[in-house]
């Protein structure tokens, strides 16, 4: 299982904040996982195509081509605006 999380405007666009899914077959890095999620339809296709999105794996920001493994927590979010 992997834990997926979506924050802020992305969460609102997708209409979902988090979900647990089985790690899809042949998916071992972020680009592959993103493509797999984009297969869910037009909404996911365009929302995850936004180049401004950041990704964190296990609560650490990672490069867009980072590898992932079973048990990971993966989060997508727009640029942060705290402070």
């Amino acid at each position, binding site marked *: 299982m992997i834990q997926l*999380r979506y*924050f*802020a*405007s992305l969460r609102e666009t997708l209409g979902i904040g988090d979900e647990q899914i089985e790690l899809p077959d042949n998916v071992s890095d972020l680009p592959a996982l993103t493509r797999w999620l984009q297969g869910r339809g037009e909404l996911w296709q365009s929302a995850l195509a936004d180049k401004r999105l950041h990704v*964190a794996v296990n*609560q*650490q*920001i990672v490069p867009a081509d980072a590898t992932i493994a079973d048990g990971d927590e993966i*989060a997508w*979010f*727009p640029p*942060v*605006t*705290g*402070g």
Partner: protein
Amino acid sequence: MIRVQTDDFNPGIELEQLRQENNGQAGAMVSFTGLVRDLNEGDSITQLTLEHYPGMTEKALTKIEAQANKQWQLTATLIIHRVGPLQPNDNIVLVVAASIHRKQAFQACEFMIDTLKTNAPFWKKEALQNS
């Protein structure tokens, strides 16, 4: 020390607490307080909600504090950040650095708030609300 909370905080109480604990060590204490700006002067008010990523937020703030303590000679540091609904002029964030050296306290405080603004997973959502 770091804290993430929905409740308001009082910068004065936090600074006085740090001063009491200082016990004559540091001669310089620099604080940054972030407030909700009221961007509308008309008959509507800004409704601000701060969302965050529980778990990652605490890790990010702890890392920022550790980086500051590694880079500068500090006797105390503090980061408090609020989440949830906020009103205009509310406190959002408090960052404090105490040091023997004035310049180091300024640099460390500014580093922490600058890094928080780019690296900590908080998101502001503003909405206009007619009064």
